[in-house]
């Protein structure tokens, strides 16, 4: 039902959709550039979902690191998803938004403990926090990333080698 209303009530929705398209696409492109640049910086400080990195390295310090972000979709994406829901299939406009949010949350987590050598046992948690219900409800999600940030004790040659390991 919602889909038909979205399709037929043109006018204001159309303006919102166009605005969402332009503004949304611009912010998305800029955000992706920003994310990629920041991810480059943390290339040698991997975040793992396992609890151990290298058993030969001795941990000097451990603390929790946490990062979160709340995002919402724009009206263009909402419109596209409404169309998609008529035919079924993957909703790509949502996927890119959540992908951005996840990567942003992970980066924020890393930035909250910037001099750690690795982030162990990283967990991602997504929860939906819509501000209203019904037809006007807009997809708003919070992504939280948390992990144990560890610093390794320097062991000379062995340490220098292991930090360049590919994960």
């Amino acid at each position, binding site marked *: 039902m919602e889909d038909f209303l979205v399709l037929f009530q043109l006018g204001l929705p159309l303006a*919102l959709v166009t605005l*969402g398209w332009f503004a949304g696409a611009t912010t998305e492109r800029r955000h992706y550039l920003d994310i990629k640049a920041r991810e480059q910086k943390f290339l040698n400080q991997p975040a793992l979902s396992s609890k151990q990195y290298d058993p030969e390295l001795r941990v000097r*310090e451990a*603390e929790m690191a946490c990062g979160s972000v709340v995002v919402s979709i*724009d*009206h263009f*994406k909402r419109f596209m998803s409404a169309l998609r829901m008529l035919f079924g299939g993957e909703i790509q406009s949502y996927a890119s938004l959540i992908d951005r949010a996840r990567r942003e949350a992970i980066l924020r987590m890393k930035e909250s403990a910037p001099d750690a050598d690795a982030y162990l046992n990283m*967990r991602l948690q997504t929860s939906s*926090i819509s501000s209203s219900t019904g037809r006007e409800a807009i997809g708003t999600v*919070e992504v939280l990333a948390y992990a144990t940030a560890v610093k390794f004790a320097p062991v000379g040659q062995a340490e220098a080698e292991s930090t360049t390991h590919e994960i």
Partner: protein
Amino acid sequence: MRGLILTNIDSVPGHRIVRHFGLVQGSTIRAKHVGTDFLAGLKNIVGGELKGYTDLLQESRSEATSRMVAQARELGANAVINVRFTTSSVAQGASEILCYGTAVVVD
């Protein structure tokens, strides 16, 4: 930072656990105020990050964490391991943040 080590793995790397105290937890339920809600409504038009909500949830998360830490301190622990966060919405416009872990003493 808090003088108490928090990790989300089942040990404190580099230390040995000498005593377990069991589960400690802290939670908080927050509602956002009308101003944030209104701004978020405007931001919804173009999509993207809702800074007001991010700050709010971050703030309530640290509140929940510090309640958990206070409980662990009371027990005499000096670390909390296996820390987990959960978020659930209890009512419209309000969400609960729960933080729980195992209080331990490490050497």
